[in-house]
């Protein structure tokens, strides 16, 4: 890996200035490297992070047929990574005009990384630096503990898709505490609501009484208020003190729970495992937002590289080259989903919505299609709306908010279905629906969504760990359960139970005997069986898995 030439760097700096002028915001410092195929060979298994810890699985082809993109929430071929400074990778024989286009694309990505709130937890440190120190720590441990380090990495990675990404964001984006004292917060937020369970009218009366006290004497009001409280509820004082002692128990994900509660990990001789698990958890958290903003991120980058490239005076004469490459990247496929194409069109659509003032209640209330068609308030709010969307949404919200019928109709989108034509022996691809409703549903279905599996503390008996899978219509991959639970059992040191839903097939009912010459339908057998969902409990004890129906 080497840095790009001074000539190319100068082009990049020019791009930066133009992008800043256009309104994008990012750190001025960036690093650009040329990569060869050999570099990529090493980089891709490490998810383009050059300093990621070593792990033998990186050297092996990982089979991903099942849940291909569920396994690792990141793209192995990302051109720019979300570090400080941001690092991006380039082919060494790109012509200048192409580099200009890629630079704009990269800059828009950086702008997105550094402003979208789902990346909030990655803003305060440089991941490559952190990863480097982690890598050294793991290498050091490996020299002491040998292959056991790899087992710990393996078992921790087995549950790293269950990290509490949203809880982490919630912690960082907490609304600032109220101006009142802690005692006041406790009184109104916990004591009155949970301990005394006051009726709303009494609760409001208490608030009024508090306000009255303050009006009477701004300095001494609170004290007077609590004097009255203590007279009324003598137990308040001790309750409040107890609440100060109790540690705030946030929602812990499975990895955190194991880290803090596992007796096995907290034994003196096993302590070294904890930082390893931490590293795996941090790494996973770092990649979480990437896959949850795929359509937005690529759409945003494509939208801006198109705009900025066409305005760039330095690349005159390469419009046709650009058009070809750009179309290759952002053309809507006849069948399939291209995040670049879809995202870019959505951002264009949003800009138009904002410019015409259509992103407003007045427009939504209109039901007359002719009026809707000609609605234009010339508010010019497109840019502002764009930047707001880039800051606050992720793919799920983005799709839900902006893929509406107007959008689907304007870009002639549809949901493609597949059905068997028995006579011809082919699958037919057909236009299934052009409604926004089903298009959104199809998009949502394809989005990354790890299962929600949480620790149920109330059902843990005998030190066992009881996990509950919140069922969302899809079962877990059954072949993977045994080895994953084996890993959790190792880290936990005691038996592990997992409650989940499975699809149990009833007995097949005998169908009519096939007649000579009649085509057997492929789906027939399936239809003859009754299907039902059933809660099942897996127990992993002493590295043996048992399964029982609940």
């Amino acid at each position, binding site marked *: 890996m080497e840095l790009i030439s001074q000539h190319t760097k100068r082009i990049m700096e020019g791009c930066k200035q133009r992008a800043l002028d256009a309104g994008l915001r990012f750190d001025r410092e960036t690093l650009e490297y040329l990569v060869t195929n050999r570099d990529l060979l090493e980089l891709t298994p490490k998810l383009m992070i050059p300093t990621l810890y070593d792990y033998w699985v990186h050297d092996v*082809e990982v089979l991903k047929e099942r849940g291909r993109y*569920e396994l690792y929430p990141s793209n192995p071929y990302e051109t720019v990574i979300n570090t400080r400074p941001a690092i991006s990778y380039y082919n060494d024989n790109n012509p200048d005009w192409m580099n200009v286009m890629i630079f704009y694309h990269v800059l828009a990505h950086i702008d997105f990384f550094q402003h979208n709130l789902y990346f909030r937890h990655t803003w305060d440190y440089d991941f490559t630096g952190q990863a480097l120190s982690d890598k050294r720590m793991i290498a050091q441990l490996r020299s002491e503990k040998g292959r056991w380090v790899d087992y710990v990495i393996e078992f921790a990675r087995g549950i790293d*898709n269950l990290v509490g990404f949203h809880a982490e964001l919630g912690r960082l984006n907490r609304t600032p505490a109220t101006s009142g004292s802690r005692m006041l917060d406790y009184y109104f937020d916990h004591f009155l609501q949970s301990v005394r369970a006051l009726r709303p009218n009494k609760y409001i009366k208490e608030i009024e009484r508090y306000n009255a006290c303050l009006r009477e004497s701004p300095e001494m009001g609170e004290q007077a208020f609590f004097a009255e409280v203590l007279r009324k509820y003598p137990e308040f004082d001790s309750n409040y003190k107890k609440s100060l002692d109790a540690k705030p128990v946030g929602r812990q994900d499975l990895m955190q729970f194991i880290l803090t509660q596992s007796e096995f990990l907290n034994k003196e001789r096993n302590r070294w495992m904890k930082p390893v698990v931490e590293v795996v958890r941090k790494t996973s958290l770092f990649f979480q937002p990437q896959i949850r903003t795929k359509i937005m991120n690529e759409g945003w980058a494509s939208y801006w590289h198109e705009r900025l490239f066409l305005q760039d005076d330095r690349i005159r004469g390469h419009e046709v080259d650009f058009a070809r490459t750009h179309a290759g990247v952002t053309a809507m496929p006849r069948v399939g989903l291209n995040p670049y194409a879809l995202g870019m069109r959505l951002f264009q659509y949003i800009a138009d919505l904002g410019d015409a003032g259509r992103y407003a209640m007045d427009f939504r209330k209109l039901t007359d299609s002719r009026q809707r068609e000609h609605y234009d308030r010339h508010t010019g709010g497109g840019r502002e709306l764009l930047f707001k969307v880039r800051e606050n949404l992720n793919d799920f919200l983005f799709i839900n908010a902006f893929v509406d019928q107007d959008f689907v109709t304007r870009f002639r989108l549809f949901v493609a279905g597949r059905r068997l034509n028995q006579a011809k022996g082919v*699958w037919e691809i057909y236009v299934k629906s052009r409604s926004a409703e089903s298009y959104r549903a199809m998009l949502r279905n394809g989005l990354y969504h790890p299962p929600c599996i949480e620790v149920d503390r109330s059902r843990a008996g005998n030190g066992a760990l009881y996990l509950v899978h919140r069922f969302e219509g899809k079962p877990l991959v059954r072949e993977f359960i045994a080895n994953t639970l084996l890993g959790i059992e190792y880290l936990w040191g005691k038996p592990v139970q997992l409650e989940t839903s499975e699809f149990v097939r009833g007995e097949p009912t005998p169908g009519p005997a096939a007649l000579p010459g009649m085509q057997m339908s492929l789906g027939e057998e399936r239809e003859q069986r009754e299907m039902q969902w059933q809660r099942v409990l897996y127990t992993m004890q002493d590295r043996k898995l048992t399964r029982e129906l609940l």
Partner: protein
Amino acid sequence: MSPAQEVNIRRELAAGGSHDLPEPLAAAGNSAGAQGRDLYSYHDLDVLQHLTAMQGSASASIRSIDELLERDRRREQDGFPRKINVGRLIKPGKRGKEKVVIVPTTVEEKLLHDTSFRGEEEPSQGGSGEGEAGEVIGEQPVHEEQQPGGTGPGQGEGGSHEMESNAYDLGRILTEKFKLPNLKDKGKRRSLTRYTYDLTDRHRGFGQLLDKKATLRKILETNLHLGNIPDVGRIDPSRFLVAPDDKVYRVLSPEKDYESQALVFFLRDYSGSMEGPSTVLVVSQHVMIYSWLVYQYAMQVETRFILHDTEAKEVPDFYTYYNSKVAGGTQVSSAYQLVNDIVERENLTRDYNIYIFHGTDGDDWDHEGSQSIPQLKKMLSYSNRVGITIAQHAHEEGQRTEVEKYIRRSGLLEDRPKLLRMDVLREDSDEPRLIEGIKTLIAE
């Protein structure tokens, strides 16, 4: 014939289909019929700069595969399940040039949603452009997705960590790492060199050694045509006209010495019922057996490939054998008979140790084995080992398949334990089970 058997036969008859080789990947192209790409399969480097990862070098990788397998063995000692699979792929090539590609693969198990589960509904995807709701905009052949391939990546792009190797290396790995038995008696060892170089080819005009007799004949012929020989009874060589092309030389050429030590017949049932995992299992196992024999006989292995449905045919190379699609009915005896015919016709018993491996799902229209058993007995009379693999369908679990039934009934397994082996596995078996099966089939 029981009703269930009848249903099976009817299904195979009705299914149609052909045994074509799969279309080359490039031809699939991006027609509207092709499956659309997934949302997350688009990447900047690929889309913007067309950068993809390169393949590792072969020599380095073989060392690392040893390390990986060593690691895997240690896992077992430590009480954890093994994780490395040695996936194999056959790279297409001209006859005799196929390469076995070893792809060490593993799976990172996590608690994931089973995305392949969609209830009864066919998956839907995005699309754009013209077309009324309900209009058909493309077609896709039904069988395209079910190409048998190794257990390797097989995703069409060629995995970045493929390790090219030959069957010999795979055989070595299988023997050493998976503790496959060594052959104790490698048969009558014949000294042989694979090629003998000899001055056997003739070449006109120039060469290494003048073939005088042939040259004279040629000159005579030329002069006859020219009318230069008035009286055939009295030839005067001094009047001959000699054209440059008349000189016939001998040139050095490699001659294949056909004495090989082992001859392996691979028989595969490619009837319609073999669709899916059973075919993958059978071909994977055959790749491994082939590799093992290549190693055991130090490359001196000849192979013959036979595919059968109701009729058997010999195919020229592993690629065709490996990739032909399934269709049609099942008649096991046809394959056995073809083997017997070939052996007899070419008098192979004199020169070879003959191994015969047959993979099937156990269906046979000849339910009683009335035709198969006599042919099988004949095979046993000359072969060193006949190994039959039955990849049983999941829905038939617990009951014996037709082939298994009639072979057991014939008592041959007990009578000729050294010659006939049978391995029955479930169609969802994993690699360790496959290797276990090979041990059953080939152990002394």
